[in-house]
């Protein structure tokens, strides 16, 4: 396992990047403004690109440099740009009717991180990797997953929901860079491409929603029940 035998400096760097990415998820959770979400997401993607490059350097996986470049390009530039285009088309720039206020969701998010840590710690210990950077990577991965789900539940605007899904994806990507850096290149490439297609599809659907449903808030989408 790569994470068990890395120099302390690399370990600290990985930890720092994982923690800051997690903090950025909290920035999204604690804000009402769609632009703040978007900025935090773009920055998070850049940090993950830096993480990929760092893993490539310290772990000796040269192909990860390519992944780092593509992550920065697609997740850091293209996806935020596509999302920016979607938000410009809407005439909302903030969450109006969230189910849980940002401050309350911060508290819930903190509890979720604690839960994620307990699970991550247990899983790493049974694999004999307790106390390594794997615990932190797994915590960040699971926390971002749970925070993404929390955002899906409490936010109503379509852009917030797309971003919540992207935070989930970012979490998995971040964790897998540290835990399984040897994952075949093809899979990572296709997942990146897949993400692009997902956001493009969401873009088209948002246009449909505006034209045919006249709303971009899931609060209004409640015709189909039972």
């Amino acid at each position, binding site marked *: 396992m790569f994470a068990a035998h890395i120099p302390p400096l690399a370990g600290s760097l990985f930890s720092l990047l994982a923690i800051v990415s997690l903090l950025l998820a909290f920035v999204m959770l604690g804000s009402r403004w769609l632009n703040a979400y978007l900025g935090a997401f773009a920055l998070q993607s850049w940090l993950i690109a830096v993480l990929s490059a760092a893993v490539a350097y310290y772990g000796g996986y040269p192909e990860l440099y390519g992944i780092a470049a593509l992550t920065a390009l697609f997740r850091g530039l293209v996806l935020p740009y596509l999302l920016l285009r979607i938000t410009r088309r809407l005439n909302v720039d903030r969450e109006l009717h969230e189910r849980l206020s940002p401050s309350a969701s911060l508290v819930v998010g903190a509890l979720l991180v604690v839960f994620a840590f307990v699970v991550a710690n247990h899983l790493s210990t049974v*694999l004999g990797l307790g106390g390594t950077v794997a615990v932190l990577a797994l915590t960040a991965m699971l926390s971002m997953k749970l925070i*993404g*789900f929390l955002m*899906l539940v409490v936010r109503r605007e379509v852009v917030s929901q797309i971003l919540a899904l992207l935070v989930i*994806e970012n979490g998995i990507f971040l964790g897998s860079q540290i835990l399984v850096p040897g*994952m075949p290149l093809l899979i990572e490439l296709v997942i990146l491409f897949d993400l692009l297609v997902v956001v493009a599809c969401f873009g088209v*659907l948002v246009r449909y929603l505006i034209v045919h449903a006249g709303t971009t808030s899931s609060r209004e989408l409640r*015709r189909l029940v*039972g």
Partner: protein
Amino acid sequence: MSPGSLVLVILLAPLTAVAGCQLVRSPRFAEYLNLAASVLVFAAVLWLLPVALGGPYILLRGYIIVDALGAWVLLSCSAVYLLASLYAIGYMRARNEPQRLRRFYALLAGFALTILLGPLMNNIGVYWIAIEFTTLISTFLVGFEKTREGVEAAWKYIVIVSAGISLALLGIVFYYWNASLHLGPSFNLTWATLRFVAPQLNPTMALTAFLLVFIGFGTKVGLAPMHTWLPDAHSEGPAPVSAMLSGALLNTAMVGIVRFIHVTDAVRLGGLPRTVVVVIGALSLAVAALFITRQTDIKRLMAYSSVEHMGVMTLGFGFGGPLGLAGALYHMLNHSLNKSLMFFGSGTAMHAFHSKRIGRIHHVLIAMPVAGALWLAGAVAITGAPPFALFVSELTILRAGLAGPNAWAVYVMLVLLVVIFVGFLNHFRAMYFGESAQAAAATIRWRPTPSERIWCLLPMWLALVPILVMGLWWPSAFTHYFNVIAAQLDRG
């Protein structure tokens, strides 16, 4: 023909249809091209069935697997694709929107392509991506009507399924991580590799990963409590799309669950994973029973019936053993055919009565004598009444369950099946009989042209006859096939 060239035909035919629908501007051409592609796919799959017995064949540097399980699932998927393509011609012509037909058939063929890809994928990561792509294409088919409800359904579908399936990706990363501790940092995570490394996996980790992939792909299969997208998506798409979603798409996602169950059998975990599968299956049946009895919309009724049958199949796979596996696989084919018939019937009824509300549909047999009779026979079949095939497969699953450690689920299943039988057929009683027959005759809005009639009726016959035949006669070739599937799954 070699398995490689057959796979090529199966994948190239719908791809050609997609390209052809984009290039040629004639809607007639698009519908016949799509039909030709579906016929070709079905023929190739029939050919592939005996070939796959000698497998598993690994092609394209380990990315494609041709095994008996995959071929069997392809059979049910390609049969539905063929039936849906036939029905779509009549159904879509009656909607009178020729300018949108090309787009519809391009999407339909593309959707079929992604569905057919799933069971052939050997690399688990690529399988996940194939499942994700089915969502992306079918979203636009669900929202094809461009009504407010259709767009709402499409949105809920893509958000819920993407979120659910991301759990499966997490589970796959966990499997990869755990396996990398034994196999070295870089390897291709195929079904065979995972099966090979399974005895060395850490039980806690393997259980966590299994639960994640089961919940993740279970969302796509439509198991309760992750089924919430299913009734919306199935009720809002055009009828042929609903049939494809229910009869083909759900099976493609079910393959992954079956393969993961058999991988997890090799981990020393005892009966816990299978018990989880059985509990979720029983829960799906329970949720479906509650919603079926109180349903007011015919297509949502069929959708909840899909949740029910996915629950039945999950129970069969969860019970396991040769009998459970055989029953569940038989049920998969039967359900695909029968549910297509049911959605075709509801599509025709929607055209005839201009409504999906059960309360607005009266005296179906007067409005549509032949289609109505076929639909009624299908309704009797789908509730698991003899002499139809679903009775046989459900009975087989019940017998498999009694022999296993989760026998309690058999009694739950029996009670719920009875509830569903009564609830489901009660709606049909209301739609077929009722107050005055003259008033009903006045409400009929749709007089199909003879060609529309044939295109709509032919697939209904083609679906009903096999269900009846397979209910009376379980071919011994099928038994042999299911045994080979079991052997291939356990060998890995």
